């Protein structure tokens, strides 16, 4: 192995200008409008009259260097060597004319890439590491994403919806994915309290920070064991103690599972950004394809397709019809877990006699 070069520190990332396609660089800040030509192709037109065509393809986010090299090869062949990734893990290539865009798309088709995700449809799913890499995962993320997108891929490539439906998957309540503000999202949840490994706790964990990590004050010192104890009825299984203290494992194969939350958005279009709300409290983990989770998401999506007005996001549709109607339309069971008893609970109780019979 050759000697490694001298390291540099605190230089920050390369300047983005080095990575801009010449037409993008030339028309930076001068774009006038854009048009969506088809689900995988859009054009941006500059005040100068220049055009840049963008072709978008799906990626599984977890990708091998082999695949990145292939993206680079496509970029060198069609995009003057430039490419970008979107915040939803798609890959974008550029072309300067519609003919070149068509040649690019034909090449992508022959290589088996899936184009789409632009406009009112389902784009790629923002997600986390899951069992592939994370110690606190209550479910896998990549597998759930694959199972969902295999089911809904036509909403990526062709079919139109009333508006964008943003899907997200987080493998635990840390929510490294944008689950708390997505149209339909899955989050891995526990149903049982952590188990204390007293022997390891005294060596591996700091008792005050372990106690401090609990949002419901369920953890208190256990001086006789130089450890901690848990008031089980106060624990809501968030796993935050396990994050600071590895001697409090919380994973439980038969009781960990997936909750579905819906109706969140981040844009300000029409209505303010919204948090996602609980639709289904728990579905068991059924790897490799989580059929019950996929079926429940399909039920929610179909109810949205049936009931929403053009341009309404999932949350706007539910706000208009009311949550009582949401449960009626979807047939999802309303359970005691749907009623909030945490930090923001009181804001969620109905202080009106006006509601719909369901």
């Amino acid at each position, binding site marked *: 192995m050759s000697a490694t070069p001298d390291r540099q520190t*605190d230089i920050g990332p390369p300047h983005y200008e080095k990575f801009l396609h010449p037409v993008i660089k030339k028309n930076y800040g001068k774009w006038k409008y854009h048009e969506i030509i088809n689900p995988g192709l859009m054009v941006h037109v500059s005040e100068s009259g220049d055009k840049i065509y963008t072709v978008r393809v799906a990626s599984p986010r*977890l990708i091998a260097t082999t695949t990145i090299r292939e993206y680079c090869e496509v970029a060198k062949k069609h995009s003057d060597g430039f490419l970008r990734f979107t915040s939803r893990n798609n890959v974008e290539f550029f072309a300067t004319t519609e003919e070149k865009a068509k040649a690019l798309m034909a090449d992508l088709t022959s290589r088996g890439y899936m184009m789409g995700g632009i406009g009112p449809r389902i784009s790629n799913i923002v997600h986390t590491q899951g069992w592939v890499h994370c110690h606190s995962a209550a479910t896998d993320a990549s597998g759930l994403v694959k199972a969902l997108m295999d089911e809904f891929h036509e909403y990526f490539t062709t079919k139109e919806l009333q508006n964008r439906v943003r899907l997200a998957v987080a493998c635990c309540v840390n929510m490294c994915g944008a689950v708390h*503000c997505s149209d339909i999202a899955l989050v891995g949840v526990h149903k049982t309290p952590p188990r204390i490994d007293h022997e390891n706790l005294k060596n591996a964990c700091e008792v005050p920070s372990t106690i401090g990590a609990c949002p419901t004050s369920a953890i208190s010192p256990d001086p006789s064991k130089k450890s901690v104890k848990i008031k089980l009825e106060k624990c809501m299984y968030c796993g935050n103690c396990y994050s600071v203290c590895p001697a409090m494992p919380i994973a439980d194969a038969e009781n960990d599972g997936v909750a579905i939350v819906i109706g969140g958005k981040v844009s300000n279009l029409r209505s303010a950004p919204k948090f996602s709300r609980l639709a289904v409290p728990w579905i068991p983990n059924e790897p490799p394809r989580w059929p019950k989770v996929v079926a429940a998401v399909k039920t929610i999506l179909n109810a949205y397709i049936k009931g929403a007005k053009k341009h309404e996001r999932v949350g706007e549709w539910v706000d208009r019809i009311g949550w009582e109607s949401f449960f009626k339309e979807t047939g999802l069971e309303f359970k005691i877990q749907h009623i909030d008893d945490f*930090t923001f609970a009181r804001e969620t109780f109905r202080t009106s006699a006006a509601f719909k019979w369901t």
Partner: protein
Amino acid sequence: MGKKYETPLLDELKKGAFPSFVTEIEKAAALTGQPEDLASMASDLLGHTELCYKEKVTHWKHGGIVGVRGYGGGVIGRYSDIPAKFPGVAHFHTVRINSPSGFYYQADSLKEICDLWDKYGSGLTNMHGSTGDMVMLGTRTEYLEPFFAEVSSRGWDLGGSGSAMRTPSCCLGMSRCEWANIDTMAITNDITQHYQDEMHRPAFPYKFKFKAAGCPVDCIASVARADMSIIGTWKGDIRIDQAEVKEYSKKMNIQSEVIDMCPTECMSFSGSELLINNSQCNRCMHCLARMPKALRPGTEKGATLLLGSKAPIVTGALMSWVIVPFIKMEPPYKEFYDLIDKIWEWWDENGKNRERIGELIERVSFPKFLKEVGLDPHPAMIKEPRRDPFFFWSEEDLAK
């Protein structure tokens, strides 16, 4: 190395229309020419993940402290809890490389990173992680230093982790969007360079994220995912091209799809002319998004700053809320950096260990925060005034 284990459950996930992460791990397992201890990494990851699928639990342990010399972050330590069974993933650390603003790349430069990652790591990546880093997924402790030397000598650096400023990210802004009211990529790059020390040497109560969005559509989800959300906006009238409005009226119902959906009811359309009462517009972007050829943002541009968003751990999810209704975001961003420094100082003085800035303000009080960092109260900061009569006065408010 190729495939070492039977993986019937994961094999199911190679089927179906959407690109498969299992196929990707297999591709990394098929790489040749890697050092012996890295060659088995991706193939052991397949076996390890298959076992997680079979047992329905994760087999990763908490990360230990690993990193590169002089840095307190940028590397996430990860170990298998069954290393004897899967020695290839006994260590499976992640290296976060700070992505360039807007996630743009040039092919040769990106290929160079790939070559280095095959030499010093598993050949697996995430493009990108949730915060926006290039995530180099899986290597051993002894490869961290040489990998860092190789990438840094080529102009790349590590991203943030732990209780530090995390890698800032942004929408692509002015590079390819007509709605960008601020230069999100320049701002993001500038913040990243300005605060290299705060990023690489964790010294905060907890993590702090910046995200810059060019307009209120917020494609980077800054309002939900950044402690400091910088959202481009404008003052003045929406620019209207009436001829293009007429063109749109031929292919869509402007009354029902635009006018009737305006949340402030500030628009009307006579059939030939679109009128906007701009004093009532709240810049939600719906009309601009429906008719991009006809409508453009006003010309006095800047940003709204919002503070405090985070995921639910631990007392519930927060969205960022307005702390500065309008700020010009132009180099050298002095007003902005002065404010950030004051906010960080206040957080440092008052925050508890693992307390995000949003949680601290909730615990202590928003009015107190405003007073102590020197921001004037403004109705844009709230949805509605308080409904209780329990408010504080200062000594100077009292009759003497």
